[in-house]
């Protein structure tokens, strides 16, 4: 069984639902009507574009193109992480901190799985590499952004408590350990929750897609389990790495809390 193709008309009918929602929200004066329409248009245009890119990429599976797309995805994810923080680090740290930890964790795990688990030949086959990395980055981004936001906000709000411990001669690590733990915990929560609810409350998107595409359910389920584990590990390692680096950056070599290294973000 192969997938039933959707025509442009089919999508127009679905778009009608979104238009209906927009009209309703305008009538309720939610102030969201315009934003719903813009977001729907963005989804359409962005997905169409990536569809074209993937089509071209699949036709000529070359490592350089796969890497280029991967780097573009990572850069955008890094920017999102920074933009979602209330207070982020100034200078290159603001962008580099999240990007570096996502790069190390997502890329390592994706390559590891491609080579050691899926064992696809060549390992960068875009049909596997790009969707895997995309799902990793999408989830890792959320975790890292939540963690870093909690870390910097926590340090800012608890300045007095951190400094009180430094004043008594504590090292910076124990003085900030409670905030560090809390930050990592907050970054991991969404992933743990979605692992716990998978299959009962929600049918994960990728699995649904594979089943619609005609894959046998058990094959789709196995892939989904693999993805969930990858995302959990990737999010966890990236959050821990980002928080560890970030906490270090909050203090200087004389163990002073340097909140002047943070700046107020836009959000």
């Amino acid at each position, binding site marked *: 069984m192969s997938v039933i193709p959707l025509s442009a008309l089919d999508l127009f009918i679905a778009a009608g639902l979104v238009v209906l929602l927009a009209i309703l929200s305008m009538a309720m004066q939610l102030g969201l009507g315009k934003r719903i329409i813009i977001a729907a248009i963005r989804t359409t245009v962005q997905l169409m574009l990536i569809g074209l890119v993937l089509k071209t990429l699949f036709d000529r599976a070359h490592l350089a193109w796969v890497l280029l797309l991967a780097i573009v995805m990572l850069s955008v994810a890094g920017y999102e992480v920074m933009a979602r923080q209330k207070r982020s680090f100034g200078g290159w740290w603001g962008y580099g901190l999240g990007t570096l930890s996502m790069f190390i964790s997502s890329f390592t795990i994706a390559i590891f799985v491609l080579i050691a688990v899926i064992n696809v030949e060549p390992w960068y086959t875009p049909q596997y590499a790009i969707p895997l990395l995309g799902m990793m980055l999408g989830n890792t981004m959320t975790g890292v952004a939540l963690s870093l936001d909690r870390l910097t906000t926590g340090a800012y709000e608890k300045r007095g408590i951190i400094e*009180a411990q430094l*004043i*008594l001669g504590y090292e910076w690590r124990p003085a900030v350990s409670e905030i560090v733990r809390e930050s990592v915990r907050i970054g991991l929560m969404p992933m743990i929750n979605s692992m716990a609810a998978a299959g009962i409350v929600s049918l994960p998107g990728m699995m649904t897609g594979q089943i619609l595409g005609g894959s046998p359910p058990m094959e789709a389920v196995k892939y989904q389990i693999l993805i969930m584990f990858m995302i959990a590990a990737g999010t966890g390692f990236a959050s821990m790495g980002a928080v560890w680096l970030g906490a270090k950056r909050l203090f*200087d070599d004389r163990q*002073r809390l340097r909140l002047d290294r943070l700046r107020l973000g836009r959000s």
Partner: protein
Amino acid sequence: MSQFVIKQLQCLHISPVDLSIEQGQCVSFSGPSGAGKSILLKAIIDLIPNQGEVRFADHVREQMRASDWRKLVGLLPAESFWWCDRIGQHFPTLNEQHISWFSELGFEQQVLDWEVSRCSTGERQRLALLRLLCHGPKVLLLDEPTANLDKTSSDAVEKIINEYKARYQCPVIWVSHDQQQIKRVAEQHYLLEQDGQLQKVAA
């Protein structure tokens, strides 16, 4: 012999400070609010970026880990902060000396089981002093240690600091706005002006 020596210490708008304090001697700082008295004390313990040298006996600040320096030079900040739920979790293991300090400041030992949130500002201020002394610093920097206290508590605090100073021969810097108190506790007086100049005041 000069024990606690500050050389050309500079921080934010404060002009370079030179000061030396003998063992067991107390120096007072006063001056208008916002002149930077608290900033100067924080600069001495290296909690904020600063230039200059500080040493105590043969301990040179720049050659020590910042955390070790702060164990040696104890700062009592104007506002006390507590990071655990109960008072007792902020104290090291207490010996008999420590326990007698508690009773001198009017606390039973049960205070260690109290929730921090149930203590008044004045109680927290006295407990913060005890917390500092129980960590055993060899130099005391006190930022208005009696600001929120009534006469009785204030006297008890002065007494306990004087005893600590005499027993361990500590150099002490005492920030106060109270002229009577300054006369009682300090041998030398300094005024930190609004423009950041530290001036010695004739006795």
